[in-house]
């Protein structure tokens, strides 16, 4: 779509109509001002009509006669100052990019330039509480779909010139704006260089979610756990930027990508730093155990009951034998069925229309849960175990996708080969996690390589004074 603007007004407008296929959301307002024939272009629904009427049209139509279009544009640009944002438009790519971003663009006869005015007025969701990443003691603001709003949320929290926000556009068709955020005095230069290089390699038509760009900034090797993170909270992103990490905001997406991400951070929340260290440490360890429970509990239960019953005491075993007597299927099949049922109900809960929420609760809770147990299809101990595993997984929601898959994999390994199978799979998973490394930052730091100073915010949560003295930046973990 490259091409410089045509000088003649009518030919210019014809060319615009030709390129847009006569799209009816492009509004062309013709008028004469300063003795020059002009036209103000805007996109319906993207601009604020009141702002245009008061701040653009009124001043524009009161301009005294000018010698030519160049003088007119000079007068508007230097003396009228109709908006804070007044980019020049020299080609049709820029013209359409501005129009579709909510700008109004002024073109004139005999003028190969256009002048944009930032009068955005499109409807957008305001700042709301993030849907995930809930917390008790911190802010209740989440990012918004509008990039500028998200940027302002960061700027309000880090009022320092060290915070740099680099804008760029990606996506051949979508021209989506991305914002690379970092603290220039903290970020490792090599990390920044490599991230820029990775972003430059993006060759996509559109960018609609963070998932479009994350594969480009991660390693190509198969990784169970992602070495880049996302966050919906500006306070969390600020805490990461202070540590020398890089954030990427995407226009239209209320999530930021954080690079690099470590495994231990999935168990950290902002609430940890609001409570006393002893309580925060206790909650940290609860989450570590919850993660292991979520992944391993159904598998270990299945393995022990099917292959290693001697590990249970006799009383417990007899209870299990009694409860499984009426179950027609093996424990492995039962457990897999219950977990699959949960995933179906969970997915249905996310996708279903709100009016149907009550019906789903009744079907899943009463019909599937209660009736299945009473009919003997599923045993109560197994249901308890899988419910415990599922609830534990919800303690670490960020790791939900790999936890879900690993849960099934470990269940299969444990059910078929017992604790031996679980051990083998655990070795493979451990090696995969330890091999996850991007930009020279091992995903398992500070556990392996073991960095004792890192334990102050991993194994325990030290006091803020101790952590402040440490002055941590992520470059400490670089190999």
């Amino acid at each position: 779509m490259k091409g410089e603007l045509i000088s003649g007004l009518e030919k210019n407008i014809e060319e615009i109509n030709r390129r847009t296929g006569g799209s009816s959301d492009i509004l062309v307002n013709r008028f004469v001002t300063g003795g020059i024939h002009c036209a103000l272009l805007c996109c319906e629904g993207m601009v604020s009509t009141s702002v245009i009427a008061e701040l653009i049209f009124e001043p524009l139509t009161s301009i005294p006669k000018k010698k030519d279009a160049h003088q007119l544009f000079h007068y508007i640009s230097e003396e009228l100052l109709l908006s804070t944002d007044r980019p020049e438009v020299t080609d049709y790519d820029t013209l359409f990019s501005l129009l579709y971003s909510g700008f109004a663009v002024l073109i004139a006869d005999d003028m190969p330039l256009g002048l944009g005015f930032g009068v955005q007025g499109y409807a957008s969701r305001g700042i709301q509480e993030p849907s995930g990443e809930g917390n008790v003691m911190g802010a209740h603001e989440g990012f918004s779909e509008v990039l500028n709003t998200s940027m302002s949320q960061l700027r309000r929290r880090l009022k320092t010139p060290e915070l740099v926000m680099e804008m760029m556009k990606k996506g051949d068709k979508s021209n989506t704006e991305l914002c690379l955020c970092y603290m220039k005095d903290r970020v490792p230069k090599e990390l920044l260089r490599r991230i820029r290089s990775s972003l430059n390699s993006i060759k996509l038509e559109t960018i609609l979610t963070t998932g479009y760009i994350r594969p480009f900034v991660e390693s190509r090797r198969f990784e169970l756990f992602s070495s880049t993170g996302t966050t919906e909270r500006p306070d969390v992103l600020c805490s990461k930027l202070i540590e020398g990490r890089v954030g990427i905001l995407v226009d239209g997406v209320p999530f930021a990508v954080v690079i690099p991400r470590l495994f231990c951070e999935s168990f950290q929340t902002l609430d940890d730093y609001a409570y006393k260290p002893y309580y925060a440490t206790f909650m940290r360890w609860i989450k570590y155990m919850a993660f292991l429970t979520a992944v391993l509990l159904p598998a270990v239960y299945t393995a022990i009951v099917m292959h290693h019953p001697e590990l249970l005491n006799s009383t417990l075993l007899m209870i299990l034998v009694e409860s499984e007597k009426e179950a027609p299927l093996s424990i492995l099949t039962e457990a897999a069925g219950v977990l699959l049922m949960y995933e179906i109900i969970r997915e249905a809960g996310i996708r279903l229309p709100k009016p149907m929420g009550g019906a789903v609760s009744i079907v899943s809770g009463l019909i599937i849960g209660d009736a299945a147990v009473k009919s003997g299809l599923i045993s109560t101990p197994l249901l308890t175990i899988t419910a415990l595993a599922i609830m534990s997984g919800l303690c670490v929601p960020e790791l939900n996708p790999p936890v879900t898959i690993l849960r099934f994999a470990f269940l299969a390994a444990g059910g078929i080969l017992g604790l031996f199978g679980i051990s083998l799979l655990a070795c493979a998973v451990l090696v995969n996690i330890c091999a996850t490394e991007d930009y020279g930052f091992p995903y398992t730091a500070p556990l392996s390589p073991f960095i004792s100073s890192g334990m102050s915010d991993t194994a325990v949560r030290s006091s803020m004074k101790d952590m402040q003295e440490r002055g941590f930046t992520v470059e400490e973990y670089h190999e």
Partner: protein
Amino acid sequence: MNKLTGRQLSAMLLISDAFALFCFRGGMSLTTAAGLSAGILLQFIFALPLALRRGGLSSGEQGFYAIYYIIWGGMLFNMQWDTSGELYIPYESSGGMWGKLLISGLIGLVCIYISSVGIKAAARASLIAAAAGGVCIAIVVFSALRSPDWGELQRAESGRNACSEIQRGFAMSGGLGGLAVLLPDVKGKKLHNITGYFAAKLVLTASVVITTVLVTGGISDITGFPAVRAAQLSQPFPSQRIDSLFMIVFTVYAVFSIGIQAASAAYIIGDVFPAAENYAGAVSIVLMTGAAFMLSGVPLYSFWTAALVITALFGVPVIRGICDKIGITEVKDC
């Protein structure tokens, strides 16, 4: 190669040493503990020159150690083959020869994966596995020591003298080849790292052997694998068995012991034959399997095995000396 840390190297070597202890055959006694401990002290002395060495390995040394890794990996495969029959791996899947082949095959496949991700990832994973396994071993040791019969230390007899036990100790220490190869790539003071490793090895060996003697000293005549049997007989509470906990440790340590040898061999093979870099891991496992077949009749604790290990410790200076004499002195940087 990028740098390893001292802890990672120690973890890799200790896993291999612990696995060899688990696979120990024949009786154990106080003489065994004393002999193995003396052997560790000798190994420490022999390993001291490695701390003073500068630079990486030459091509000749790489070739030697690649072969060494293949042989030691084959011996580890044999140890795992012999010992897995003693463990209670689910009987429905491990019936007879096919079951053992399945178990060994699965371990081999996981080892191929470990070797494909590289020595650095394997080193990181080893540290975590060694720590977790160490906790489990400590649980087994404390369970065994709940009601010990200290008289067993005097009564138990292994039927071997101290020199024979020292030889055994060397024969079980095949991981020392890894010390010779990987020590140049370790960050920090090498002498410090070596001392820490051998101290940990001494504590591990002494505690496992003494615990085994206390638990199985009286029934050593009917015990093929005393360390395994000691773990199976340890119970923290009268009504609670934990032998399957030991099986987890055994499996993890078997995988990492063999996998690290394969990863190290793959690194060397990939360096010497860059065209084979993508398949170096699989090639090393296949070669190790072949070595396991060829060495299946070789006694594991023989003089020749011990001599091989000693050669691994002294291999670098000896080969370097020979290459200097011939005129080949190319040494690669780390």
